[in-house]
């Protein structure tokens, strides 16, 4: 199963619901294009909902890092929501869990964005 995203907006925060695999190739490209598209529209509050992401490889991790730094460099915020155990464990062993702002509740995640 490849990667799919759909975007919705709640209180000015763009929630990107991701499902499938974020891996080298299509999955990473779709995530990159989605984030770039939001930034090009001036949307800089991005919450990546990874609740239905069942697999991620080193390229996918790199894409998450790239999205995080790209958004931050443009003065925005990117947070992660609903990590599966696999993705959580990967971010732990790569020491990225504390780099990202990781949330497990959508409502509180939305409130955590700067007003």
């Amino acid at each position: 199963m490849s990667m799919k995203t759909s975007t919705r907006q709640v209180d000015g925060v763009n929630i990107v619901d991701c499902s499938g695999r974020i891996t080298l190739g299509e999955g990473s490209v779709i995530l990159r294009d989605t984030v770039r598209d939001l930034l090009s529209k001036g949307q800089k509050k991005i919450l990546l909902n990874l609740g239905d992401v069942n697999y991620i490889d080193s390229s996918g991790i790199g894409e998450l890092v790239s999205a995080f730094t790209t958004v931050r460099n443009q003065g925005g915020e990117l947070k992660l929501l609903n990590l599966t155990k696999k993705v959580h464990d990967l971010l732990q062993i790569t020491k990225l869990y504390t780099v990202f702002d990781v949330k497990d509740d959508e409502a509180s995640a939305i409130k955590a964005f700067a007003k």
Partner: protein
Amino acid sequence: MTENRVSYTMESTLETVDSAEQTANRIATEAGFDEEEVMRISMAVREAAVNAVLHGNAYDPGKKVKMDFVRTQDALVITIRDQGKGLDLSKIPDPLAPENLLKTSGRGIFLIRSFMDEVEIHPSQAGTEIKLIKHVHGSAEGAKEASQ
């Protein structure tokens, strides 16, 4: 000792990466590893295949990736060879170093080492060979104790 060997010669394409992962998943499952270990083995193989296709053979259609999956009583041993210039191990940065945490690449070998019991990397001018070993339940602890 019984040994079950399966070998593949594959193109330097993204499809090979997916195929390697799926093959590893199937063989590790058949070997009796639990779901968590199967995921770790298949991810390590995927990362090794990415290295072979992308960094080793650089998608060169004239170069192949060879894979051996060997099941013994004690372990699953997977060997992946490319025909690239040979990996320069001295140029692989530590992805956990603070200055490297936000780099977008360079985590493949680290993940492979994290997920397998033993990893041997043999670069040469004819390419890189990486051997991944996962011991069956019980043997892994023995091997780790023996190496201490």
